[in-house]
């Protein structure tokens, strides 16, 4: 019998199981897009039948990082920019757990950018949701890596001289095997995309447009939006890297010109996940590492290997 009986438990899961008793009502500002992520995540998990105790939600620091406080599951509210390395190790160590990482655009594309690139490259079997509000919310509105060129803030009073980062293109180039963009104003699409991302075997990256009415006044309610899969104007194959690349590029440009494009951009079902690659090389045990600590059984000793070195 498993020491982790919440994993894979077959039962109906209701959305409100994810609502904690301590702080059932989030303290985000009224109209904040972060509510949309919370709602979509709860809906997706319930529909997939994932229960709170088989989920580990790792967040960074920011308004977005507060997600953990409003979503009842195993949680790890880490430090600014570091949700990914914590999350992917948890998945390697205890691979039955459904691991989700989440954080802001500053957290994931700025201070944690290096981890983003490498986690995508390695194709860890997990989901990463980036709350993209084009601003540093928690620290009061400073310019972020996705802020538009010319964006004024207290730390860039003369307007941002930098061109914003291209999160979708970067993700694709780095190696993510599922890349999508959704928006808080599009709750049904958001929920479906998160479901797909979770079910995808490999690194899934969801760039989630979350309006920040408090600090990003000139923006952006991200309406009207276009779902590129539903629109006749866009026709490309999400399995084709080159076509995806082009669609992403256009989508990233369009955002700063006032057109909000969302949907699935890239899906690679062929590429094995990092854990599969490691196992194929004998670099990772077949079963769950964490489980082994709860089982009876013999453990190897250094004494048995000493002649190799000494």
């Amino acid at each position: 019998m498993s020491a982790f009986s919440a994993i894979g438990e077959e039962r109906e899961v209701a959305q409100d199981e994810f609502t904690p008793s301590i702080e059932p009502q989030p303290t985000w500002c009224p109209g904040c897009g972060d509510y949309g992520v919370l709602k979509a995540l709860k809906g997706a998990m319930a529909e997939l039948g994932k229960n709170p105790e088989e989920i580990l939600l790792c967040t960074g620091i920011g308004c977005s990082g507060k997600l953990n406080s409003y979503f009842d599951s195993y949680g790890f509210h880490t430090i600014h920019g570091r949700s990914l390395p914590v999350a992917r190790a948890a998945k390697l160590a205890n691979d039955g757990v459904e691991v989700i990482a989440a954080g802001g655009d500053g957290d994931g594309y700025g201070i944690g950018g290096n981890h983003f690139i490498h986690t995508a490259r390695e194709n860890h079997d997990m989901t990463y949701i980036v709350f993209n509000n084009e601003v540093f919310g928690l620290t009061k509105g400073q310019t972020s890596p996705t802020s538009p060129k010319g964006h004024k803030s207290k730390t860039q009073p003369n307007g941002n001289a930098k061109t914003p980062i291209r999160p979708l293109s970067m993700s694709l180039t780095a190696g993510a095997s599922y890349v999508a963009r959704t928006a808080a104003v599009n709750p049904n699409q958001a929920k479906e995309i998160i479901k797909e991302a979770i079910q995808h075997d490999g690194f899934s990256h969801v760039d989630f447009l979350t309006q920040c009415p408090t600090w990003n006044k000139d923006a952006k309610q991200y309406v009207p939006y276009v779902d590129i899969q539903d629109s006749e104007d866009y026709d490309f194959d999400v399995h084709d890297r080159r076509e995806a690349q082009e669609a992403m590029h256009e989508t990233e440009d369009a955002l700063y010109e006032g057109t909000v494009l969302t949907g699935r951009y890239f899906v690679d079902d062929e590429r094995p996940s990092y854990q599969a690659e490691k196992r194929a090389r004998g670099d990772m045990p077949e079963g769950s590492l964490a489980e082994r600590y709860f089982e009876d059984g013999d453990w190897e000793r250094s004494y048995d290997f000493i002649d190799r070195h000494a």
Partner: protein
Amino acid sequence: MTDDELIWRIAGGSGDGIDSTSQNFAKALMRSGLNVFTHRHYPSRIRGGHTYVEIRASSEDVTSRGDGYNFLVALGDSFARNPKENAYYGEEEVKPLAENLDELREGGVIVYDSGLLDTDEIENFDQRVEENDWHVYDVDLRGIAKEHGREIMRNTAGVGVTAALTGIDTSYVEDLMAEAMGGDILEANLNVLHDAYEHVQEEYDADAPDVTVPTGEHDEEQVLVSGSHGIAYGALDEGCRFIAGYPMTPWTDVFTILTNLMPDVGGISEQVEDEIAAAALAVGASHAGAKAMSGSSGGGFSLMSEPLGLAEMTETPLVLVESMRAGPSTGMPTKPEQADLEHVLYTSQGDSHRVVFAPSDPVECYEQTRKAFQIAYDYQIPVMVIYDQKLSGEHRNVPKSTFDEEPNPDLGSVLTEEELEDQPHGETGIYHRFQHEGEEGVSPRSIPGQKGGRYLATGNEHTPEGHISESPSNRKAQVDRRNEKLAAIRESLDADERQEVYGDESADYGIISWGSQSGTVLEAVERLNDDGHPVKGLSVSEMAPFPKELLSEFIESVDDVLVVEMSSTAQFHGVIQKNLGRYGEKLSSLLKYDGNPFEPAEIVEAVEEHGSGEELSSNTRFEAAAGGD
């Protein structure tokens, strides 16, 4: 040469295979019954540069390198004459001979490769040979190597000559070669070895070797291990099956040993994008139910500062290794120093909440790494094992039975699902993971995936259920509980029987050292006592929580104390005073920071000259106690 010990030095260029040859020769000496100790000196480059490895062998215990040495094999630097690279470095070629003469003892032996080295290029060579009564053997090592195999095998030829001159039985060397290689390579090496041996016997009077080496006998099987092996084996035997790292000298030693073992023990090793990630991965894996570790050297450890604080705040068990090298910044990558002590003790914001061990030899590396895992997982606290470039690379023989121990994969203070049922939970079932009260300050953990165990771990201050809170009463209760663990850990460490004081117990002069310098101090203390200079020594290897009682008892028992450390700012001296709050007028310092570890004679001299006002002859600095001059 009739010393009662052999200190054999083989010198050449980096990349000339000196490491593996000396390793094998050290093992051969060990198997012949001697105690051995190796010391490697190398520059931070892949090829070229003046490199040597020294093996000290004796029938007595050896805990340190010696003062100088008595047998040189100078190979010649192959990089210095690499025609393909169009690289000729003139003098560099003779450096393996020229640069090693200063430390060669009177009456010592020189074997040099006459195929490569020309003594005419060394100033006053013949005169120095005569003055110092050195015995010189010029042998065409390269020629012998080339005749049977490849040029690189000239280090094997050097071993053959050594064996012939010292009368060491070559069968030990042959066995080791057969273990390490096979086929044509083995045959070629054996031919080189024998040819070199016979050459010396024919050329010189083989029946009367002018070098005698000691002989000895071990009463049980020995293995040759470094401090890095000790740490790696300790981790393995505590059930560590997850290691994350980023290469950095000298930490790479431990990282590599464990990485090679992981596939055979069902573990996972991850080389990641940077050290922030490395430490964060160890935190994530530990949180999710594995025994995990990471580590680095100074620069990389700086990057681990924030994840380390996260482990402190979330009470996630974590073991980190810090392998020191000379700093600041990139410093001297291949040189030891003990100047990261304060860095390890205090880095990361807020009150430090950690345990720090500083083992002094390979066996202590093993034992304290095991202890580190036990404490980390029992008390849910980060534990650091701090050592340095010296201990990382030097090899010693230890009884193989040292490692014949039971494994301990216990996860410490973790509950099973059954046990979780009896624990306090919130209204909707959140487990109270961070209760205000706990035995010895510990509130047990659950692991993601367990039914009835969900909670939030956060780097923010938090309530029992892990909820973010800035309530003053909760804050105080949580801080007090976390601090309570440190007191409990100190108590449990005090209960361990350990021998830390050595030398003449009634002496009124004491020497305190920590970590890797202790073996050298031990030898100095023995010599001083033999010379009628009563001294005792204290070796400290538990740096936090600080062993106050042990230190104050020792300091109280003497009139003067010399604190010996490899740091220019006397960090350990400062840590002692900070913790004890007094004794400034008793504590002097002997400091070394030129990149080389202490030699016993340097410590002996400092003690003998203490208070005399005389300048010290070596590259060390004496700092008098407060109020003295």
